[in-house]
């Protein structure tokens, strides 16, 4: 058994920032990650990092833009924290040597991004995430922080009180991918989940193949609610054949969207008469798909993004990476031709419910970055707000887990205080095919697993989690035949892209739930063909697939329950925002192998002001 004060799961931007902060607070910290840190998906972020750094800008304006962009589903204490802390974090990254793009006078450059009232997106060409990931990893090396890389965390060691808000997290269980051994990690002070987005729930996504939502799925099964899962961001400019992202920076620099008839449709068809291409991402994604659906798309699939008029010099200076991506992955030279683009899954606004200090309702369990939902993005994230989220909340989670005093959180977590029961009609029973009892089952369900019948010591909880996980892996490997994960995963991904995409309707959402049910039944019979204990990716992907199933179901259930149109969530039958009913977060808790739906009101009271919902127009 390994032992540390703080265990960080995941080594992308949020995980690295959390580890550095925890160590600065004096903790013995270790990172456990299924990828080596420099392989993390943060490296694929392109556009930039928002921070009110300049005269004429202020954190208050940044907060206002973010609240409006969220379509009033963000929690003010979290948004204000994001905007207040971000400038300091960007300066910190600069002090760590990050090679930001520079103005003539040597200061960091900033550019306009969608939904922002000031050009406050600081960037490093079109490879900001790559620079950020490597800069933070360098700091990790400098500090000698221990990394268990290529160790896949498969279970949280959580105590089993009836009420999740009384549970404690004592550590994690992880599988050593290189040797095939399972081991336990006891965290004396806290576990921080920083496992990234769940993009692999969809088949057309900008997300890495590793982004299977492991953190949210584990936290969910251990008793932490998932918040606002229906809000999935579709990025309006991804390459049609691969889902590779073309940064919003292209539009920020002046790139133009055209339909088949050469019309600049954002204006000519009135989607955003003021902001045009720089309207919020949800607005542009819907505009593009509407063009395609009305027969004005190219090859009935995509639209064109043209940046040729910017001139080669400016393109090479600020967007060079895009030239290579378009060429290598779509075979188009964007200096000579417009790029084909269409919306693709890009970001999950929802995730593990946390407060503004990164803590969940389970004591000692934290989450930060895309896997978490401190609720800074509400129903739609503005471009350039993901990277400050990583650093701001990564740092806060790290400090808090290591015992730093961040003050009392204003956002409540878990079923405490002000919440209401939810109800939704589903065509099939969601949740486990057979709700788990005392038995350990190979599919990883069962959350806190066998009841102890009394309280155990932290070490015993960790040991018990390890035993449960050993049985699970063993039974997956012992099974000689059955279904393969790849088929199950692909079926769910296809159904999600067909039915839970930019445009949603009740019948499609119900179909997705039936497909997920079908996949769950097949998963009961899953087996691992590769019996090797060396680098067994077959086993890893089988375990990941179970996580994909749980998250796909949570996303779809939330989408079915929310019969209104807000931010990224559009419903054919309900095409207006209904503040009188829906100014609240969708919550899902895993209880006895079944999702339980409930709601919590949005917190619109900030430090000095209350944000009044207004019509969102661009």
């Amino acid at each position, binding site marked *: 058994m390994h032992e540390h004060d703080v265990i960080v799961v995941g080594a992308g931007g949020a995980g690295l920032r959390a580890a550095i902060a925890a160590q600065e607070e004096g903790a013995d910290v270790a990172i456990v990650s299924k*990828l*080596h840190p*420099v*392989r993390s*998906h943060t*490296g*694929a972020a392109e556009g930039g990092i928002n921070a009110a750094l300049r005269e004429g800008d202020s954190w208050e304006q940044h907060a206002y833009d973010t609240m409006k962009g969220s379509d009033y589903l963000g929690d003010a204490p979290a948004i204000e924290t994001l905007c207040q802390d971000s400038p300091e974090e960007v*300066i910190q990254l*600069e*002090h*760590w*040597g990050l*090679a*930001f793009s*520079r*103005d*003539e006078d*040597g*200061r*960091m450059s900033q550019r306009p991004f969608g939904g922002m009232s000031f050009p406050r997106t600081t960037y490093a060409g079109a*490879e900001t995430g*790559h620079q950020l990931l*490597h*800069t933070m990893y*360098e*700091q990790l*090396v*400098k500090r000698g922080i221990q990394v268990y890389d290529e160790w896949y965390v498969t279970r949280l060691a959580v105590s089993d009180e009836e009420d999740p808000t009384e549970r404690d997290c004592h550590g994690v269980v992880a599988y050593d991918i*290189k040797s*095939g051994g399972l081991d336990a990690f006891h965290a004396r002070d806290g576990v921080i989940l920083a496992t990234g987005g769940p993009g692999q729930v969809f088949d057309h996504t900008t997300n*890495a*193949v590793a982004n299977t939502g492991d953190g949210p799925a584990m936290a969910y099964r251990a008793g932490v609610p998932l918040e606002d899962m229906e809000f999935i961001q579709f990025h309006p400019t991804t390459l049609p*054949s*691969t889902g*590779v*992202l073309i940064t919003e920076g292209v539009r920020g620099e002046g790139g133009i969207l055209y339909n088949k008839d050469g019309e600049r449709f954002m204006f000519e068809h009135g989607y955003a008469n003021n902001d045009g291409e720089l309207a919020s991402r949800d607005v542009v994604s819907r505009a593009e798909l509407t063009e395609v659906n009305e027969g004005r798309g190219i090859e009935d699939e995509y639209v064109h993004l043209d940046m040729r008029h910017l001139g080669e010099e400016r393109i*090479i200076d600020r967007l*060079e990476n895009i*030239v*290579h*991506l378009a*060429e*290598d*992955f779509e*075979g188009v*030279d964007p*200096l000579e031709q417009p790029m084909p683009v269409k919306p693709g899954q890009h970001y999950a606004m929802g995730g593990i419910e946390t407060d503004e200090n990164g803590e969940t309702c389970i004591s000692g369990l934290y989450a930060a970055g895309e896997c978490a939902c401190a609720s800074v993005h509400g129903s739609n994230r503005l471009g350039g707000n993901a990277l400050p989220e990583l650093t701001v909340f990564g740092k806060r989670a790290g400090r808090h887990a290591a015992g730093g005093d961040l003050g009392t959180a204003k956002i409540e977590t878990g079923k405490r205080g002000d919440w209401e029961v939810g109800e939704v009609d589903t065509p099939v029973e969601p949740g486990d095919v057979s709700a788990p009892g005392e038995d350990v089952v190979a599919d990883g369900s069962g959350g806190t697993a066998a009841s102890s019948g009394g309280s155990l010591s932290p070490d015993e909880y960790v040991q018990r989690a390890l035993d449960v996980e050993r049985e699970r892996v063993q039974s997956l490997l012992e099974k000689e035949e059955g279904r*393969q994960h*790849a088929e199950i995963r*692909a079926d769910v991904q296809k159904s999600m892209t067909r039915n839970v995409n930019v445009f949603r309707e009740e019948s499609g959402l119900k179909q997705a739930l039936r497909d997920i049910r079908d996949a769950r039944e097949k998963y009961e019979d899953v087996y691992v*063909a*590769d*019996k*090797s*204990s*060396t*680098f*067994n*990716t*077959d086993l890893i992907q089988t375990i990941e697939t179970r996580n994909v199933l749980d998250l796909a179901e949570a996303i779809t259930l939330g989408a079915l329950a929310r019969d209104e149109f807000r931010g990224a969530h559009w419903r054919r039958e309900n095409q207006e925002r209904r503040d009188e009913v829906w100014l609240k977060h969708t919550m899902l808790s895993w209880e006895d192998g079944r999702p339980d739906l409930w709601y919590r009101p949005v917190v619109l009271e900030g430090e000095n002001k209350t944000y009044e919902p207004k019509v969102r127009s661009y």
Partner: protein
Amino acid sequence: MSTQVPEQTEEESSADTESQSQSQSAAQQARMQKKRDRAAERDRQKEAEEAEKASSEDDTYLLKVFRYDPEVEGKQKPRFDEFHVPYHQGMTVLDALMYARDEYDSSLTFRHSCRQAVCGSDALFVNGRQRLGCKTQLSDLEEPVRIEPLPHQEVVKDLVVDMEHFYDQMHAVEPYFQTNDLPEGEQLQSRENREKIKMSTRCIWCGACASSCNIAAGDNKYLGPAAINKAYRFTMDEREGEDMKEHRMEILEQEHGVWRCQTQFSCTEVCPKDIPLTEHIQELKREAVKNNLKFW
């Protein structure tokens, strides 16, 4: 040790000084031009191939994939497996491997994640050259497509190699920004200086360069092109002071540092991010020479 400067290096140095006098953006434009030419060439090839394909019924690609598993009996002896993968336009080597794994043999093992050339985990030896699987179009390759793990690295299983030594070398150059006097707010950096280090910051740690380097293959202690490039990134950053530059040069001038490079350009040729690695190494050699001539 600087007395051992090989002649060839000095020649290289003067050649490099010339190219250095051109602006960075000219060098970049030349690279872009090269890329465009390549793309045009690829388009022509593709058209020809597609015409050919349309006339034949066979639109699959034959892969010959290296297999080895130390744990499983019957797989302990290295061998090549053949997979016939149905081709679709735009298919990459990584797509083909994933197809083979998901449809034919789920034990086929390789690292991959972002599939957009930025995580650096799927560097492979494809048809005799180090490449990223995700950004290599099948249509650019001759059949059969032979896929092997990176040469000169210990094989863990199938196409997965042990990267520990590579990481150790990266860590050996103190790969982190170091400066003593930080201002209250941001440090200034000139556009020219940022431009100078820009290419060096693009490294994704894929290991293709180190695997292609004959010297690194023969000298386990040689820092290798990736680590030297990482050191270049900091040495040339004007935000680090002169003291630190001297300290970095000491690391680079060690016996197994920059002088080991024999300017064979193989690292530069295979780098999937077009980093002019050899140029960077040569520039550091020049710095070292300048430093050692300071008694003048």
